[in-house]
């Protein structure tokens, strides 16, 4: 009497996992691929910074505070890494995002300060670096946008019933998303007060 019911349950289980598992696998791969792209673009930005700092130093050596902040923010970013398999940890991703946002702010401040040095602005190398920086920021935005899309698709897959059972069974936790909590604040360039002592 037990056997038919057991067989039915097993069959149901197989069907369920068959239905959800492949999709989840594919979605997981996509999330990893997109996360790698995000990491690449953030790294590209970090790589531009030494040249940028030395070029600005050549014209605006007194702006020590801003230059130091950029260098420190970059170092901090280097110490906070998140691999694709750590994406289940929302805290880790938030730490990574905060560090990157701080670097972004420091860079904005540096560029605002550079506006006061016409010779720096006219320097070909600085112009090229600025173009590369803008291009990289855009690439970061595109990579993040694509990551967010794939993560949403994955999370929807993993949280819905009956796939959520398969997910728990095979270890597919929901993955972290990018928060846009204070993005508006961060993207506005702060006021620079030149009357404050160096």
């Amino acid at each position, binding site marked *: 009497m037990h056997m038919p019911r057991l067989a039915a349950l097993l069959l149901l289980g197989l069907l369920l996992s068959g239905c959800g598992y492949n*999709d989840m696998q594919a979605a997981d791969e996509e999330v990893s691929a997109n996360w790698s*792209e995000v990491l690449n*673009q953030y790294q590209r930005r970090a790589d531009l910074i030494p040249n940028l700092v030395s070029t600005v130093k050549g014209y605006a050596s007194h702006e020590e505070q801003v230059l130091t902040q950029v260098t420190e923010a970059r170092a901090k970013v280097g110490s906070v890494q998140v691999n694709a398999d750590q994406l289940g940890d929302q805290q880790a991703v938030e730490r990574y995002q905060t560090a990157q946002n701080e670097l972004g702010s420091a860079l904005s401040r540096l560029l605002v300060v550079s506006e006061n040095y016409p010779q720096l602005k006219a320097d070909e190398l600085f*112009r*090229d*670096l*600025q*173009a*590369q920086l*803008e*291009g*990289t920021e*855009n*690439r*970061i*935005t*595109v*990579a993040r946008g694509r990551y967010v*899309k794939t993560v*949403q*698709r994955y999370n*929807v*897959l993993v949280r*819905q*019933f009956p*796939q959520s059972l398969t997910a728990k069974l095979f270890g597919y936790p929901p993955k972290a998303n990018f928060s846009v909590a204070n993005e508006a604040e961060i993207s506005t360039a702060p006021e620079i007060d030149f009357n404050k002592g160096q």
Partner: protein
Amino acid sequence: MYRIALILFFALCSLSVQAAPQAPGLQQRVTDLTRTLKAGERREIEDQLRKLEKRKGSQVAVLIMPSTGAESIESYAVRVFEHWKLGRQGIDDGVLLLVAKDDRTLRIEVGYGLEGAIPDALAARIIREQITPAFKEDEFFSGIKSGVTSIVALIDGEPLPAPWTPPPSFLDDPMIKLLMYLAGALILLLIYWLDPKPENNSSGGSDRDSGGSGGSDGGFSGGGGSSGGGGASGRW
């Protein structure tokens, strides 16, 4: 259930771009929604781009539109590129030159495969040296032609040509100017001599062609390429 969620998801996505105009369909290499270019000018650029595709396989397209609305030109350019899929699949050798005429912004969006030939710094240089100086003088065809020539040169593996300068008009020559004044004076004298009362005549129609007079290449469609947000933007 998954399908419903997906539909909801796509609906949510479409909500987030509410203020942006629809990305237009791709039918030809040069799409001018503002009627800035004359038919002959459009054909000239299309010829140049068609020959490039034959030569190298790369797909370069030009889109001139009034405005990108509330959306930034960077974001809009990426969307158009995703929609049009310029460049060959896997090779990703597509380039989009997008001009938002009323916004006075423009962008060169470069596909993944051409980021080595057209790095951001060179794209910015093309905009700064070839395109915006012309646009500032309202020389749209000249600027676009110049920009396209530079892009083609980079794809062909050649260095950038010299920066754009306004082409010398033959009317700038002082001798020609003098002759024009004399001729004008003579004509006026002649008119007064023949008929003291001057007549008004209406000006003829312009020779601007409403686009869509299909070229000889029988339609153009994207090759499945993609871009990652590389390139440069500018304003004039």
